[in-house]
C-alpha cells in the first residue's frame, strides 16, 4: 500500500511544483514590497519627527501583537465590506507585505540608531544635506547590522506564506492539504512539503548566519 501511495505521490509531483511556484510568487512579491516599505518606514521611525515615529510605532505594535492568520482573515474578509473586493492572491500578498514591512522597519530603525551619533554630527559639519548624510554616511554603516537579520526575516516571510493557504491560495501547503485527502499518507505528503520548504529556507538561514559572523568580525576590526 505504501509503495502504491508513494507512486501516486510521485505522479502528482507536478502539482506540488506548481504549488511551490505559487509559494515563491507570493513570498517573492511580498519580500520585495516588504523590503521597500520596511526601509521607508524604518527611516521614518528613526527620524526626529515624534508624531511620525509614534504613528509607525503604534502600527508596528498592532501588527506584531496579532497573529498573521488573523491579519490574513482581516484583509480577506473585512476589506470587502469596506468596498475593496480582493482575490485571495492579492489579499495574501498585501497581508504578507505589511507584516514583513513592520518587522523590517524595526530592523532598519535599530540599525540606523546603532550608528554612532558622532558620524551624523561630522557629516553635518562637513556640509552634507540630510539626504546625503543618509545615503553616504548612515545607511552604508547601518547596512552591516541590518543585512543579517533582514535575511533571517526573509526566511520568516517564506515560512509565514504557508498561512495564506487558509484563504485558498493554492501554494505548496495547500497542495499538500488537497493531496492528503486523496493519498491518506500524512507523513509522506507533508514530509514532501516540508522538504520543499527546507530546500528554500535552509540555505537562507545559513546565509544569514554566515553574514552575521562575517559582518560582526569586520565591525570589531574597525
Amino acid at each position, binding site marked *: 500500500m505504501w509503495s502504491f501511495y508513494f507512486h501516486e505521490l510521485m505522479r502528482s509531483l507536478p502539482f506540488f511544483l506548481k504549488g511551490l511556484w505559487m509559494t515563491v510568487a507570493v513570498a517573492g512579491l511580498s519580500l520585495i514590497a516588504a523590503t521597500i516599505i520596511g526601509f521607508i518606514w524604518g527611516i521614518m521611525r528613526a527620524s526626529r519627527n515624534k508624531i511620525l515615529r509614534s504613528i509607525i510605532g503604534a502600527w508596528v*505594535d*498592532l501588527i*506584531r*501583537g*496579532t*497573529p*498573521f*492568520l*488573523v*491579519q490574513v*482573515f*482581516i484583509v480577506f*474578509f*473585512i476589506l470587502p*465590506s*469596506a468596498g475593496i473586493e480582493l482575490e485571495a492572491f492579492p489579499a495574501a500578498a498585501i497581508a504578507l507585505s505589511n507584516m514583513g514591512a513592520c518587522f523590517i522597519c524595526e530592523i532598519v530603525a535599530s540599525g540606523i540608531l546603532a550608528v554612532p551619533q558622532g558620524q551624523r554630527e561630522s557629516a553635518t559639519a562637513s556640509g552634507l544635506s540630510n539626504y546625503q548624510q543618509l545615503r553616504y554616511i548612515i545607511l552604508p554603516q547601518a547596512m552591516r547590522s541590518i543585512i543579517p537579520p533582514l535575511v533571517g526575516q526573509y*526566511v520568516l516571510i517564506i*515560512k*509565514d*506564506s*504557508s*498561512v495564506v*493557504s*487558509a484563504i485558498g491560495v493554492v501554494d505548496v*501547503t495547500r497542495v*499538500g*492539504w488537497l493531496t*492528503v485527502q486523496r493519498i*491518506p*499518507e*500524512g*507523513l509522506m*505528503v*507533508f*514530509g514532501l*512539503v*516540508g522538504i520543499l*520548504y*527546507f530546500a528554500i*529556507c*535552509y540555505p537562507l*538561514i545559513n546565509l544569514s548566519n554566515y553574514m552575521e559572523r562575517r559582518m560582526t568580525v569586520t565591525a570589531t576590526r574597525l
Partner: protein
Amino acid sequence: MLEAFNFRVILEYMPLYMQCFLATLWLSALSLIGAILVGIIACAMRLSQSKAISRTAAVYIESIRSTPLLVQLYFFYFGLPTLGIMLPEWVTGVIALTLNSGAYYAEIIRAGIQAIASGQIEAGIASGLNYFQRMRYIILPQALGMTVRPMLGQAIVLVKDSSLLSLISIMELTRAGQMLTSDRFMPTEGFLTTAAFYLILYYLLKTFSSWSEKRLIFREAH
C-alpha cells in the same frame, strides 16, 4: 465599514470568546512549558561532546527552523493517525507547538551559554568555586540575563502561533472569529474582537519583558 459595527453580537458571543481566550491561554502555557523543557534538553544534546548526539539535535533544530509551523502541524495531524496513533486534536496541536518552539528555545539558550567567555568559567574554577557555585553565581545569572528577553519574545511568538490550531478545528481565539464569520457572516466583528484579545496578551507579555529587563536580578550582567 465600522459605522455598522455590531457590539450587540460581540456581547452575545462574549461567553464564547472568554472560553476561547482561556483555551488559547492554557494551550499556550502548556506548550510553553513543554517547549522550554524540550529546548533545554535539545540544547544540552547540541552542546554534547558526542558527535552523534550533537548531530541528532542539530537535525531536529534545523529541520524545525527551516519549515513552516503549519506544515509541521499538518504533518502530525494527518501523519500520526497513519501510524495508528489517534490523539485528540488539542494534543496534536500542543505537540506541534512544543516541538516547534522547543527548537527555537534550544538556540536561544545555546546563544546565552556560549556568550559567556570561557575565561569567566576558568576564573571561577581558579577561585575554588565548585560546579554548582559556578552555575549559580557565574554562568546562570549572566546567561539568564541575556536570554530573558529573547525567551519572552519567543513566548509572544508562541501565543500568536497558537492561532494556527484553529485550522485543525481546535476551539481557540481565532476559531471564535471564524465561527462569528460562518454563523452570522460578521467577519469584521469576529476578527477584530479576536485581534483585540491577542493584543491584550501581547501587551501583557511585552510589558513583562521590559519590566523584567529593568528589574530582575540580572541587571549587572548587561
